[in-house]
């Protein structure tokens, strides 16, 4: 990853300016010191990733507690336009990473060019490219071009199929486990490659092919000298499009070349009533292919929608009559200008079978890549698909082109195919023969012939054809061509290997004079059998054939394209990786990302949240009993495995009700007071939860975990309100200095994890069906509007509700334990819920964008909502001051209560940080904590800590986190929240 351009906006805000494929800039809230720690991991790259997601509004935001997560950084906020509808942390890989200057980049027009010269190319400057790293077949626009001095290791990679590329160590390649950087790819790794190579780029001349005058004359000719104002209209229209005159280097020419090729095959062009409007039809079995054509045409002209109809055919041949039914898809372009241009470029008017026409002359004068476009598109319509002969599994049918011509026009048909042959020879592709056969008797007594051109099916010829020319406007054939090339290369390599073994057998035989069995043993090679050795010895060496058990094409196809769909990419294997020291400049292009609506996994599932309880107790009243209290809490609130829950095992029906009702279920079952609900987001119940979308396994895992604390960073802590910053607001929240408070941080536990796991598993199988590509399997996803997406959303809402119910039950347990330990009535204790807030959630909210109200889907991943005073979603009792924000720190420092501000609404969609944010890995923390007693260190600070799990204390030690005070200073100084109170822990239970 090359460096990220970071601009300091003010003391607490940094901007990653919009560049490359970012749709919005990135904004990071941090001071200089925090920025230093942020720069240590990969989270800024993830901020950029989020900025590239479609539909993102304003900015990709990061709070000062940001750290490296999956997909989204933890501490990230992003809002998405509801109409473009994306709800996701996902996105496509971020790839500013470089390859060497002479790497060939394949252009969508089928020519290749050295990447270092790509920006010199004059045709269609906004070119659409894809390269080895961009496995998606969808074309993408080049957003920017990058050239830089080498500052990292460079490797040269060679694959089994003989491809090689030179790239920096951080250049990503597509592998079976998503995009991996070259550094992580080694000999033996699989990478996705495409076999199509096209031809080298050449600069076209500016010679005119179609001039304004040509068009005027043609209209006069067609309209029989009575053109009316058609000429004027047509010329005006074409001038508005700025496509006249059409030259060899006009941006429109590559498109027209393809269209001419296709229409000569599967299209037809005519003028209504012979002199009326020009109409051009395009036919294909594949709607996808027609869409590709429509997309090209709509850059200039307006195609119709696609029509679908069933056709009944009746064909009489010399021998028989055939009847069959086909589904035909088609669309038309109703435009005289379009029709005239295609006609001038060589498309005949009317039935092609009953008139003479030739390969247009201008094609012969075109350069190679333009000729290729014409041929590939004509072949996409007319040439037979790559196919192996069933009974000779490894041999392919000869590729074939055929044309129907009525008896008087046969000569011109033969001439046409001979012209194609001439063009093919320029690509070193050999034609086997051109033949004619009487095919059909017409109703008028005449006959039609089929004229065929058959290409040689030698391996070399086939590879040449499919690799250099291939197919345009035909995805299925392009795909088959790529697989077929792999198959042929593989076959060739096996034959070569067998030839080599033959040599070896002969050599052993000559030098060692041993028998076949012993030679076979000494080979130690399993790819040939004993019979092969015997034959070589007794019948002499000869050109090897492939073994009888050679993999069938279909099996090979499945294996080599597994997980790659019909993109035309196949799996290749790296056989050599060498470090290069002789390259000093590398290049990259950054591409647009495809637009997809999806809901991704691994995001909303662990909906943990925080809740704060206030009490009437003073610090003094508690200090004597703190040990009793914490042990009572520790034994009374189950943390994890094996601890018998305070709640007996739940029945399936109870769990379903919890999923639907959330905290409300807990209240209805005696865990707390009705008033509690008023201080929970959405009054404790998330809408849209459908218990039937949750699996049996999730219910099984969840049945004894309601009211348990869990582990890892989850905890329960007894705090003293140590400092009040905003007395008025603190009063409204019920917080008083030196009073005791309880902070609870936990989530949906095994129930949520299992939901995540179940849906990830399904999505990993299904996401490709939605046409979505992902860079990390953890981000498998589905469109939000698909059944699967909806079902996942309802399941996720169930997990949110489960978490809320669980925190409510814990609250009730805390109240009971306090009553027991202090022997006081609930009224005396005054344990009230201050607030319950989730900090891993996506919600639909209304925000102001450019002065207009817009409904957005706001994602807060490791970020907390921070709504200001008077916001309708703030509970009534707090509406005059704003929504409370609970920020737990690490166990040794402190926690904070903040309040939302208008600035947060303006800058961060009403969001702020969620905690301290890790800086140290768990492993590193354990290492550092070795020979230290974290519990003792904490005790010296006046904090009593108990943890059930052995390693938790070390992993969660204060040093593993950023200093919470630094984080909170940034959010309060920048104005996106206001400090209300500081809480100092005196006792902590870790799960």
């Amino acid at each position: 990853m090359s460096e990220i351009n970071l601009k300091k906006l003010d003391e607490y805000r940094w901007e990653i300016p919009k560049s490359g494929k970012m749709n919005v800039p990135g904004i990071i809230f941090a001071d200089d010191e925090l920025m230093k720690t942020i720069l240590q991991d990969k989270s800024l790259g993830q901020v950029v990733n989020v900025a590239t997601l479609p539909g993102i509004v304003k900015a990709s935001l990061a709070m000062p507690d940001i750290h490296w997560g999956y997909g989204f950084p933890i501490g990230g906020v992003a809002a998405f336009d509801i109409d473009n509808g994306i709800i996701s942390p996902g996105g496509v890989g971020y790839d500013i990473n470089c390859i060497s200057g002479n790497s060939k980049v394949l252009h969508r027009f089928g020519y290749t060019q050295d990447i270092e010269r790509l920006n010199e190319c004059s045709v269609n400057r906004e070119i659409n490219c894809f390269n080895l790293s961009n496995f998606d077949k969808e074309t993408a626009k080049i957003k920017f071009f990058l050239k830089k001095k080498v500052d990292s290791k460079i490797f040269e990679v060679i694959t089994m199929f003989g491809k090689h590329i030179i790239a920096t160590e951080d250049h990503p390649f597509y592998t079976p486990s998503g995009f991996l950087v070259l550094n992580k790819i080694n000999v033996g790794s699989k990478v996705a490659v495409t076999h199509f190579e096209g031809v080298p780029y050449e600069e076209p001349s500016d010679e005119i092919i179609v001039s304004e005058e040509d068009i005027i004359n043609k209209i006069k000719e067609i309209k029989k000298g009575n053109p009316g104002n058609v000429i004027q209209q047509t010329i005006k229209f074409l001038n508005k499009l700025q496509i006249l005159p059409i030259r060899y280097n006009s941006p429109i020419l590559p498109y027209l070349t393809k269209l001419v090729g296709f229409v000569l095959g599967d299209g037809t062009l005519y003028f209504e009533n012979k002199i009326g409007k020009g109409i051009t039809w395009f036919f294909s079995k594949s709607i996808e292919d027609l869409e590709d054509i429509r997309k090209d045409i709509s850059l200039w002209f307006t195609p119709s929608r696609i029509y679908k109809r069933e056709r009944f055919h009746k064909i009489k041949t010399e021998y028989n009559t055939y009847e069959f039914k086909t589904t035909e898809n088609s669309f038309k372009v109703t435009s005289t200008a379009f029709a005239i241009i295609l006609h001038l470029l060589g498309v005949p008017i009317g039935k092609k079978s009953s008139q003479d026409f030739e390969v247009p002359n201008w094609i012969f004068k075109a350069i190679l890549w333009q000729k290729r476009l014409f041929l590939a598109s004509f072949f996409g319509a007319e040439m037979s698909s790559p196919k192996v002969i069933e009974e000779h599994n490894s041999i392919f049918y000869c590729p074939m082109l055929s044309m129907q011509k009525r008896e008087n026009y046969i000569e011109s048909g033969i001439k046409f195919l001979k012209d194609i042959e001439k063009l093919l020879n320029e690509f070193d592709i050999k034609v086997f023969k051109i033949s004619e056969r009487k095919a059909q008797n017409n109703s008028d007594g005449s006959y039609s012939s089929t004229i065929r051109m058959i290409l040689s099916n030698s391996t070399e010829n086939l590879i040449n054809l499919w690799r250099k020319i291939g197919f345009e406007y035909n995805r299925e054939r392009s795909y088959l061509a790529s697989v077929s090339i792999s198959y042929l290369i593989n076959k060739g390599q096996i034959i070569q290997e067998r030839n080599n073994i033959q040599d070896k057998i002969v050599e052993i035989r000559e030098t060692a004079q041993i028998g076949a069995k012993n030679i076979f043993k000494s080979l130690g090679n399993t790819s040939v059998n004993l019979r092969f050795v015997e034959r070589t010895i007794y019948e002499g060496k000869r050109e090897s054939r492939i073994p009888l058990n050679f993999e069938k094409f279909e099996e090979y196809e499945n294996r080599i394209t597994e997980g790659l769909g019909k993109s035309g990419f196949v799996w290749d294997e790296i056989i050599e990786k060498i470090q290069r020291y002789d390259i000093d400049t590398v290049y990259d292009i950054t591409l647009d990302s495809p637009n997809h609506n999806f809901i991704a996994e691994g995001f909303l599932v662990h909906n943990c949240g925080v809740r704060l309880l206030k009490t009437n107790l003073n610090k003094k009243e508690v200090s004597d009993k703190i040990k009793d209290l914490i042990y009572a809490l520790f034994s009374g609130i189950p943390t994890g495995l094996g601890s018998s829950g305070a709640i007996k095992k739940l029945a399936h029906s109870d769990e379903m009700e919890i999923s639907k009702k959330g905290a409300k279920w807990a209240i209805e079952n005696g865990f707390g007071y009705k008033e509690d609900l008023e201080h929970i987001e959405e009054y404790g119940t998330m809408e849209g939860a459908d218990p039937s979308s949750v699996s049996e396994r999730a219910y099984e895992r969840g049945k004894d975990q309601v009211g348990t604390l869990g582990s890892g960073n989850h905890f329960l802590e007894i705090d003293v309100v140590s400092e009040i910053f905003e007395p008025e607001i603190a009063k409204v929240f019920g917080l008083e200095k030196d009073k005791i408070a309880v902070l609870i941080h936990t989530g949906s536990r095994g129930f949520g994890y299992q939901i995540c796991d179940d849906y990830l598993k399904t999505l990993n199988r299904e996401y490709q069906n939605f046409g979505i590509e992902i860079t990390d399997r953890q981000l498998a996803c589905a469109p939000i509007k698909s059944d699967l997406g909806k079902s996942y959303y309802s399941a996720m809402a169930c997990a949110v509700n489960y978490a809320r119910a669980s925190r409510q039950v814990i609250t009730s347990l805390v109240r009971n334990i306090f009553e027991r330990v202090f022997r006081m009535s609930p009224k005396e204790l005054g344990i009230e819920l201050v607030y319950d807030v989730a900090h891993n959630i996506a919600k639909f909210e209304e925000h102001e964008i450019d002065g207009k109200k817009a409904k957005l889907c706001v994602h807060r991943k490791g970020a907390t909502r921070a709504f200001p005073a008077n916001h309708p979603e703030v509970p009534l009792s707090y509406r005059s001051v704003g929504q409370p924000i609970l920020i737990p720190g690490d166990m040794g420092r402190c926690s904070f209560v903040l309040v939302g501000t208008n600035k947060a609404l303006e800058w961060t969609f009403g969001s702020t940080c969620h905690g301290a944010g890790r800086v140290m890995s768990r492993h590193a923390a354990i290492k550092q904590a070795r020979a230290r007693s974290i519990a003792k260190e904490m005790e010296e600070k006046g904090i009593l800590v108990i943890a059930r799990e052995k390693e938790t204390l070390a992993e969660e030690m204060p040093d593993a986190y950023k200093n919470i005070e630094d984080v909170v200073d940034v959010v309060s100084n920048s104005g996106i929240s206001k400090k209300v109170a500081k809480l100092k822990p005196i006792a902590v239970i870790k799960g």
Partner: protein
Amino acid sequence: MSKIEIINHTADIGIRAKGNSINEVFENLALGMFEIMVDIKQNRDSPLFSFEKRGTVPDKIEITSPDIESLAHDWLSELLYIFNTKHKIFKKFKINDISKVKNSFKLEGEAIGEMFNPEVHAIKREIKAVTYHNLKVKMGRSYFCCEVIFDI
């Protein structure tokens, strides 16, 4: 060569398991996962913890997944699921077969363990889930390896 290594990640923990066969890698993966969760050293060693001993009733596990990576993920998730629902701690693993059936991979394995007992077992930390993040299985001629990151 250590058969199980810890991989570092800021928020979570991963393991890299190696072996001379894919079966061995899967066995080591399971060992590694339980090692992250439970302090196995403090456990009693019972003669029943052996596939060869009579009287031992292993949990039989059969899994089918679309690819080898998913198979690793699903194998560990299944063990985690049993651990979480039955509160059983596994100590020994045996993969009888991993094979490709049509377009999917099938695993047949067994695991032996004992019921969780807080007197005997020390839980080190909870694994929330087996993630797909950076999940990879490497299969060479005689070198096999798998990397998994757990959500802690």
